[in-house]
């Protein structure tokens, strides 16, 4: 199966369970299981290829200019991890089906789970490190959803937040590290990076890259000092804990360290950071785990400890260490998932996970007892179980590791960690299952249905099989190890055996197990000592740090961002002018290359009108209706200016937009006060005036400057002029640019326009639903109303003229490709035709005759434009490639048919829909109670609701 499909399956499948909640829990779980199974089988179909040493690659160029490509690669290491993710995922899905309550939203759970699964598979199959980062962040986000799945639990929400904060910050560091790595090598492809060990390790940027990447790995894999988030993530439902903390999430960091092992390992920096953090984490996690009373917390810290163990093994930088690490990853995934599931079963049966309230479950839950005991003994390192084998290899590796010239430090700490590890395993078994049966369980414990115990049982079978017959796992692990080493070192020849003879590692192992038993016997005094010791509480420190960060942010942001919007605008204007001034004074100014053109009297008159209207706006803006007229004058002069300066398309657009804008503002003024009161002080007005004059002077100088000079580099406009007719089939270059050369921009723009209109519609709906509704309905207009709401002359005229205007719009639309016009202008003209009906004949009359809702018109426009673009795919051309031809249908002249016209039709419809939806929304607000909407548009209402009369 294609690698793309393997990664895509969980993501695509994630849609299903969320949507089929009503189909029942069984169906949700069944679909999820099937999807995972398909991905798993697809993965297995690639095994024959990689077993012969090939690397399966799937490549698709996504953003090649950024070096970001969808490149997937499957080698033995990726296969190993993908197997764990999908294989254990299958067991978890089956388990979760029976674990979740009837109240839990199962579809939602499985959607999150599949999202997470897809992201994890993506990480281990990525060949491009940028792509890997994308999946890395996706795991952080989807695990946040999973950990916080029980939204009603505060611990769940806090744990999810903490996990997201820590792993998200680590993700940021990782991005930095990966970018540096990509810069050193000159490629973001893993397969290239892995070939460049010397170049990377000799680079001066090696240490920063290493540290940043390791921060990413350590946060994800809960290594000291970032280990604290993992136990808090235990508030998640147990299937999540079992999945995230045995085989997937926390193994992502380990995976990355293993993936990068060939190029990053082997230096002193790598050794000290990775081995050091691993050793500390291993011992610390084991000690804390021993004294935890919550079963899941105990397992959480034991996970931290075992992750430390694996990290330490990768840190030593030897081939044997890497092999031991791979073996322990497999073993840990099997026994830890089984243990988490057992803890979940106990919680499910006894309704408590508090180890102090449990005990004696041996007789009540014999199946669970057998599963949990075998898994825990494996974790403790008891022979004939798989944990023993990899722990033995770890001790062997530790014995050969020297630090600070002393050969005792590493083995000593490793043995200490193993001792505590054995102790908490024994405690898990004895305090939960052994001892007398208690009478105080919150619920009577019992063995669960097969669906709950079968998944861990399958894992325990693996634990025993590998433990008894390690030679079965040996070829596979060596095969994976070869992929980790990547040719940098030889795969060790040592064989996996239960009995290596009486060597020092065995003595250490015996010491750990016996010591662990003794420690358990002295558990009471040890616990009292532990409780008496002062310990830093990670959660409190974390919350203090977050609170301090929030305070710092408030200190900076709140004074600047205090809700005084006019202040923001002033700061913005001053900053822009200041930066512009700096650029102006430090740059060089060339001599003018163009001569100024003369202005005739008409142009000067137009300029005078514009200046007068603009100045009038400043001084008369308190009278709002007057300012509407003045801004209308400004708009008209600008339109006329466009005509003068050879831009007929712009003039037509400006003119038509002007009409709808003024109507819009008039509708708004219907509700807003008609005057602006004098509020600001003279000082403030002087200040604002100064800011405004500075801004005005800056733009004036800048535009005057460039109007007298030619462009520094040749403009690309020549290309458009030269190709408009031969390439685009139109002589109106502006229209050809809009619908052809830059059609994709236009496509985006009509979508934006549609979104703006929908936003206005949504806001209107909110206003009409909320408390303002009554206010609007009972509003008293502040202007006298006309007695004749629908003057007959106006009604007749607008109806007669409507077909004419529509014909004009049609004409403007069709000529647009060759003469001034096009979809935008035609759309605006057609809108004006419809708006006139609203104005003359009233809202209800017009709405009643409206055949298509404006939303649909917008949607149809965007769809037509988009489908026109997609159509070019069928001719193996890029999106929105246009084509045209000339046809002749007698008796007409030869005329042109262009796909661009179809695209322009989309533009036309989107513009009509957007303009009309906006204006319609505004006028819907204007409808009032007591004033019934007239069915006949030409009625005369003698009862004017004149406010002067009513208040009198």
């Amino acid at each position, binding site marked *: 199966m294609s690698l793309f499909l393997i990664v895509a399956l969980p993501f695509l499948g994630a849609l299903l369970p969320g949507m089929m909640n009503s189909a029942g829990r069984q169906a949700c779980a069944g679909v999820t299981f099937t999807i995972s199974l398909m991905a798993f089988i697809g993965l297995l179909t690639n095994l024959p290829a990689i077993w012969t040493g090939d690397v399966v690659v799937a490549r698709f160029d996504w953003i090649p200019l950024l070096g970001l490509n969808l490149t997937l690669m499957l080698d033995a290491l990726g296969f190993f991890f993908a197997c764990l993710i999908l294989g254990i995922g299958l067991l978890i899905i089956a388990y979760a089906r029976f674990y979740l309550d009837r109240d839990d939203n199962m579809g939602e759970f499985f959607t999150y789970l599949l999202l997470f699964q897809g992201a994890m598979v993506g990480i281990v199959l990525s060949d491009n490190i940028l792509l890997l980062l994308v999946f890395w962040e996706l795991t952080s986000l989807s695990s946040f959803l999973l950990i916080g799945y029980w939204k009603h639990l505060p611990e769940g929400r806090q744990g999810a937040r903490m996990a997201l904060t820590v792993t998200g910050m680590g993700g940021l560091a990782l991005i930095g590290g990966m970018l540096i790595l990509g810069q050193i090598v000159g490629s973001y492809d893993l397969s290239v990076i892995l070939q460049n060990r010397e170049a990377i390790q000799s680079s001066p940027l090696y240490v920063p890259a290493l540290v940043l990447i390791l921060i990413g790995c350590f946060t994800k894999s809960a290594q000291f000092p970032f280990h604290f988030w993992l136990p808090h993530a235990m508030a998640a439902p147990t299937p999540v804990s079992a999945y995230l903390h045995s085989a997937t999430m926390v193994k992502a960091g380990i995976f990355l360290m293993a993936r990068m092992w060939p190029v990053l390992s082997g230096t002193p920096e790598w050794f000290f950071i990775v081995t050091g953090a691993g050793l500390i984490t291993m011992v610390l996690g084991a000690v804390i785990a021993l004294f935890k009373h919550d079963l899941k917390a105990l397992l959480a810290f034991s996970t931290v400890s075992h992750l430390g163990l694996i990290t330490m093994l990768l840190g030593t930088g030897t081939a044997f260490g890497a092999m031991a690490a791979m073996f322990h990853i497999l073993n840990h995934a099997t026994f830890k998932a089984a243990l988490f599931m057992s803890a979940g079963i106990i919680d499910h049966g006894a309704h408590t996970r508090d180890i102090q309230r449990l005990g004696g479950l041996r007789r009540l839950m014999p199946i669970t007892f057998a599963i949990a005991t075998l898994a825990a003994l494996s974790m403790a390192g008891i022979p004939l179980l798989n944990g023993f084998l990899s722990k033995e290899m770890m001790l062997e590796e530790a014995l050969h590791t020297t630090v600070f010239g002393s050969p005792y430090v590493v083995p000593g700490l490793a043995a200490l960690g193993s001792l505590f590890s054995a102790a908490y395993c024994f405690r898990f078994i004895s305090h939960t299952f052994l001892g007398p049966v208690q009478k105080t369980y919150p619920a009577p414990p019992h063995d669960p249905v097969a669906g709950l115990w079968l998944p861990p049982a399958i894992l325990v079978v693996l634990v025993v099989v590998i433990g008894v017959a390690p030679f079965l796992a040996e070829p596979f692990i060596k095969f994976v190890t070869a992929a980790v080493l990547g040719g940098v070192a030889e795969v060790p020849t040592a064989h996996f055996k239960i009995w290596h003879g009486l060597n020092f590692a065995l003595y250490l192992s015996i010491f750990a197990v016996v010591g662990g038993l003794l420690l358990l016997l002295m558990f009471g005094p040890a616990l009292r000592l532990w409780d008496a010791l002062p310990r830093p509480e990670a959660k409190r420190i974390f919350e203090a740090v977050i609170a301090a960060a929030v305070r710092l942010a408030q200190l900076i942001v709140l004074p600047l961002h205090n809700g005084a919007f006019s202040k923001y605008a002033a700061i913005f204007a001053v900053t822009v002018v200041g930066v512009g001034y700096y650029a102006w004074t430090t740059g060089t100014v060339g001599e003018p290359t163009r001569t100024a053109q003369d202005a005739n009297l008409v142009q000067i008159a137009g300029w005078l009108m514009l200046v007068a209207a*603009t100045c009038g706006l400043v001084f008369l803006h308190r009278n709002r209706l007057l300012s509407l007229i003045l801004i209308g004058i400004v708009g008209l002069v600008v339109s006329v200016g466009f005509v003068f300066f050879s831009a007929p398309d712009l003039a037509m657009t400006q003119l038509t937009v002007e009409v709808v804008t003024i109507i819009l503002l008039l509708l708004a003024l219907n509700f807003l006060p008609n005057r602006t009161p004098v509020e600001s002080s003279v000082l403030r007005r002087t200040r604002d005036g100064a800011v405004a004059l500075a801004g005005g002077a800056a733009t004036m100088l800048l535009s005057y400057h460039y109007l007298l000079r030619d462009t520094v580099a040749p403009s690309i406009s020549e290309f458009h002029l030269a190709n408009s007719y031969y390439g685009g089939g139109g002589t109106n270059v502006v229209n050809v640019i809009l619908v052809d050369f830059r059609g994709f921009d236009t496509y985006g723009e009509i979508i934006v326009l549609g979104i703006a209109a929908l936003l206005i519609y949504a806001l209107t709906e*909110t206003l009409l639903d909320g408390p303002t509704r009554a206010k609007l309905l009972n509003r008293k207009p502040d202007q006298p109303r006309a007695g004749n709401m629908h003057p007959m002359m106006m009604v007749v005229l607008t109806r007669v003229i409507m077909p004419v205007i529509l014909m004009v719009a049609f004409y403007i639309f069709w000529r647009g490709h060759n003469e001034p016009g096009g979809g935008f202008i035609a759309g605006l003209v057609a809108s004006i035709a419809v708006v006139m009906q609203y104005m003359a004949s009233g809202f209800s009359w017009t709405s009643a005759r409206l055949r298509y809702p404006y939303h649909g018109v917008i949607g149809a426009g965007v769809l037509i434009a988009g489908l026109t673009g997609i159509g070019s795919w069928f001719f193996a051309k890029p999106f929105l490639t246009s084509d045209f031809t000339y046809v002749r249908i007698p008796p007409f002249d030869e005329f042109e048919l262009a796909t661009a016209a179809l695209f322009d039709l989309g533009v036309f419809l989107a513009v009509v829909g957007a303009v009309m939806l906006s204006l319609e929304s505004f006028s819907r607000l204007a409808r009032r109670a007591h004033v019934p909407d007239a069915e006949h548009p030409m009625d005369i209402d003698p009862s004017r609701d004149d406010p002067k009369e009513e208040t009198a």
Partner: protein
Amino acid sequence: MEFLVASAIGIMTAAGLYLVLRLRTFPVIIGISLLTYAVNVFLFASGRLTFGAPPILRDDVLAYADPLPQALVLTAIVISFGMTAVVVMIALGAFLGGDTDVVDDPADPVEGDAS
């Protein structure tokens, strides 16, 4: 002519900025509209001023006005209508909901903590 256009841009910008800095929503909207004109003309002028040579291809004409700024400004005009409409709607909603059309939020006490 160049001076007339440049000064018109400057005057519209200055008036627009001044009105944007006012305290009520309606003058701010008018100010934004004025700024829109200024910016559109500014962008348009980056194609330099050309008389009597619209970018409509003709067989016997060799010089044309720069079509590119025109195409960009054309969509800018339409988009600015959409933007104005949204801003007006927000202003209207705020006025109907809060019975005031003051732009600035009243100064409120600093919140204690993030929770």
